[in-house]
């Protein structure tokens, strides 16, 4: 496939990802910082907008889909991971980054998270975890703590929450990180690491929601987060230790690259019939002679 050569000579700049459209999130929403951090990471990795596919789920974060540069797809609720996995296998030259909320990812679309981790599709996934359904005005999600009074749960949430990291670690992921929407620099550093990873990278962003999450606001997280690089003897190649470190969500919340498998084999490199193929599926759409296939039925 012939491609755009707009950035053959110049480095990618922050302004390349500029959009004229005005952001519509609530004041102090964590999404502002997340979007800024993604742009920073893409620029730092020198990935031009024409080589990026940003995939958005439906939810507050998805309303930013038309307010950033790059190729983008704003799909339907809960399905972003399956879409992004399908897109990524077709053209490995395009960096695929997917975004989803805790509602769509851990509720309606949780099966896709399982598929994406098991298949180790070569994409970055950013979970905007703000502990509620924001765009539908504050209902409980799968990560809302039990007992909390939410829209439509007047006497408090009656189901126990999913522990995101326990769930993700149970699926033998190849890259797991956690970061916090109040720290753009930390986020962009994590996003850079995930973009460089070969395989599926899962990033949980602990995200403030000033409108509907009053239990764990910005300051609550800020006083509790601690990067694993500041923990003595932390080994991000040790999945058991990572799982243990990720456990605590109340006192000291571990952030940073919690785990990375150095032997990660991404999805397309697991396909026995494609190992000798250097091109991508997008390059291969042409007539394939079928006479030989037919002849085996004579």
């Amino acid at each position, binding site marked *: 496939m012939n491609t755009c050569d707009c950035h053959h000579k110049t480095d990618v700049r922050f302004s390349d990802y500029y959009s004229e459209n005005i952001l519509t999130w609530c004041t102090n929403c964590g999404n502002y910082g997340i979007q800024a951090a993604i742009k920073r990471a893409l620029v730092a990795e020198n990935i031009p907008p*024409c080589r990026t596919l940003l995939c958005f789920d439906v939810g507050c974060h998805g309303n930013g889909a038309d307010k950033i540069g790059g190729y983008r797809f704003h*799909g*339907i609720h809960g399905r972003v991971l*399956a*879409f992004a996995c*399908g897109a990524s296998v077709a053209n490995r030259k395009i960096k695929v980054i997917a975004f989803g909320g805790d509602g769509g990812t851990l509720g309606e679309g949780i099966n896709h998270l399982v598929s994406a981790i098991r298949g180790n599709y070569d994409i970055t996934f950013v979970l905007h975890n703000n502990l509620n359904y924001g765009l539908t005005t504050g209902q409980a999600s799968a990560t809302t703590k039990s007992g909390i009074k939410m829209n439509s749960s007047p006497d408090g949430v009656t189901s126990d929450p999913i522990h995101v990291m326990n769930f993700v670690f149970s699926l033998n992921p190849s890259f797991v990180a956690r970061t916090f929407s109040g720290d753009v620099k930390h986020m962009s550093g994590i996003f850079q690491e995930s973009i460089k990873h070969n395989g599926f990278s899962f990033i949980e962003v602990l995200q403030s929601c000033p409108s509907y999450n009053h239990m764990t606001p910005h300051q609550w997280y800020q006083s509790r987060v601690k990067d694993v690089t500041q923990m003595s003897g932390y080994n991000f190649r040790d999945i058991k230790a990572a799982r243990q470190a990720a456990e605590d969500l109340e006192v000291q919340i571990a952030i940073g690259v919690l785990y990375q498998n150095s032997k990660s084999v991404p999805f397309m490199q697991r396909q026995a*019939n494609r190992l000798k193929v250097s091109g991508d*599926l997008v390059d291969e*759409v042409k007539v394939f002679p079928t006479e030989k296939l037919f002849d085996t039925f004579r």
Partner: protein
Amino acid sequence: MLEFQRLVIKIAGESGQGVNSIGEMVAKALKRSGFCTFGYREYPSLIQGGHAFHQIDIADIPIHSSAKQTDLLICLSRVSFHAYLPTLKNGGQVIHMLEQLELSNQEKKLISDQQIKIVYIPAQNIARQIGGKSIMANVVMIAALWQLIGLPIDPLESVLRAEFASKPKVIEPNIACLKKGYTYKLEGLNPVLIKFKPQNKHKNDGLLSGNHLIAQGAVSAGVRAYFAYPMTPSSSILSYMADIYHQTQMLVKQVDDEITVVQMAIGAMFMGTRALVATSGGGFDLMTESVSLAGMTETPFVCILAQRPGPSTGLPTWTSASDLNLAVYAGHGEFPRCVIALSDPQSAYLAIQNAFNIAEKYQIPVVVLTEKQIAESLFQIESLPQSPKIKRHLVSEDKFFSLVAADRYKHTKTGISPRWLPGQSDATFVANSDEHSADGTVTEDAQISLQMYTKRLNKQITLHNDLPEPVLIGPNTAILTLVGWGSVKNTVCDVMNLWNTKFPMKCINYLHYEYVYPVRTKKLTDLVKRKQPICLIENNAFGQLGALLTQETGCHFEDKLLKFDGRPFFIDEVGEFLEKKIK
């Protein structure tokens, strides 16, 4: 009564007894003897037990349908003997391997009334005496059949040797079983004289299922990714795609559910390759929200919807054409789409290729309807038809640099906007499931929303004008026109051939819809204006094509032949229907 020039053989047994594989071997050997065959399967949704058969209709002209009544029944199991004895014609013959066979009084009467001849072969003992396994009894049985129909053994032997080429140890005992069965004295049976002549030109034909043909069509069309979740009767597309994936180097991936399937396909298509999915009704139900997404984001999408009887799990291994409404109306909101229905082997190979060209040109979802009857029946054809050219309708390379984001969904007369792929241009855009303006930016503005809605629906008008009218098969003047779609065509055409030869003064013809939606109506309304007698024929209860045509034309179908018992139309049924109708 209409006398079809066919010999009908039914090989019946339990699921797990290898009924289908020996059926395929017999069909192949018949073909290599120079005959035309059509293979039809009935089997339960079980891995072992129940009763199943593989029926081979044999003729001297190409046939794509089955007779209901059987000439010869080869029985491997007790249950199948009792189940299929009543399907025998007058003078029918049975070869079975049941040491002790108890017949009910009713069966005894049937056998005597119909002059049915029955012979027992101790096939399992013969196989064991040779030193083979009891499963080799199957070979004894088909060799006995071969003796009965008086054909030279060579084609059957060569098929058998090829079948076991990968297991050299079992070849010799199988060949020994073959020789024993071929010479076993079939006491009381009458040798069958095949009334028509074999022809050399058929010996090298291909023998393959509709699903094989669909898969080969997809390969030819440049499909590079196949995503699926198994569901009968679409599953054998998945297994065949996997069987040939080292040759094709296609990505073949079974994923965890149909929603993942459809989303991955839309993702891969958005990125710019050709991806295919196939499922049956229940799986398609799960996909419908994403069909609407493809409509809104103008992402090409092609899905094979292999029909079986519903509702719900229904009859999983049986046939039906009752999901036309599902294909036409699936997905919320209003958006353009195309629905194409397969019928014969040529259409199975070609329609999928046309589907991709349509999906990419109009940037719409295309649903290709097939049926268990097409998917799993064994068709004999001389060669594959000529493939249509791949037409992708993407922006040409010289225009990449001059594109702007707002070209992606810009207004055009046809409703079709320029489409380019991620990586091709620095004019990046958003494909948005929200209503959007020309560059994909979300909008709630009444005027822009209306324009965009209209733009998308204009594609439907353009497509409607581009699609062909249904095909009128048979003579132009006829005393009755049957109207149908899907596998019905195969039965009707086989019956029509004979009918019009036998009753040249009472010819019939058949109006066949392959492009079902958006539906063209001129040919039909012309017939109605001429007051041509018309009868709708569909493999469903609602007469779904008829209802669609009524909706589009105002013409009502008074006369309908509808069948919805999980079985396809058989030639004898359609023949009888015509005889009653046209006196």
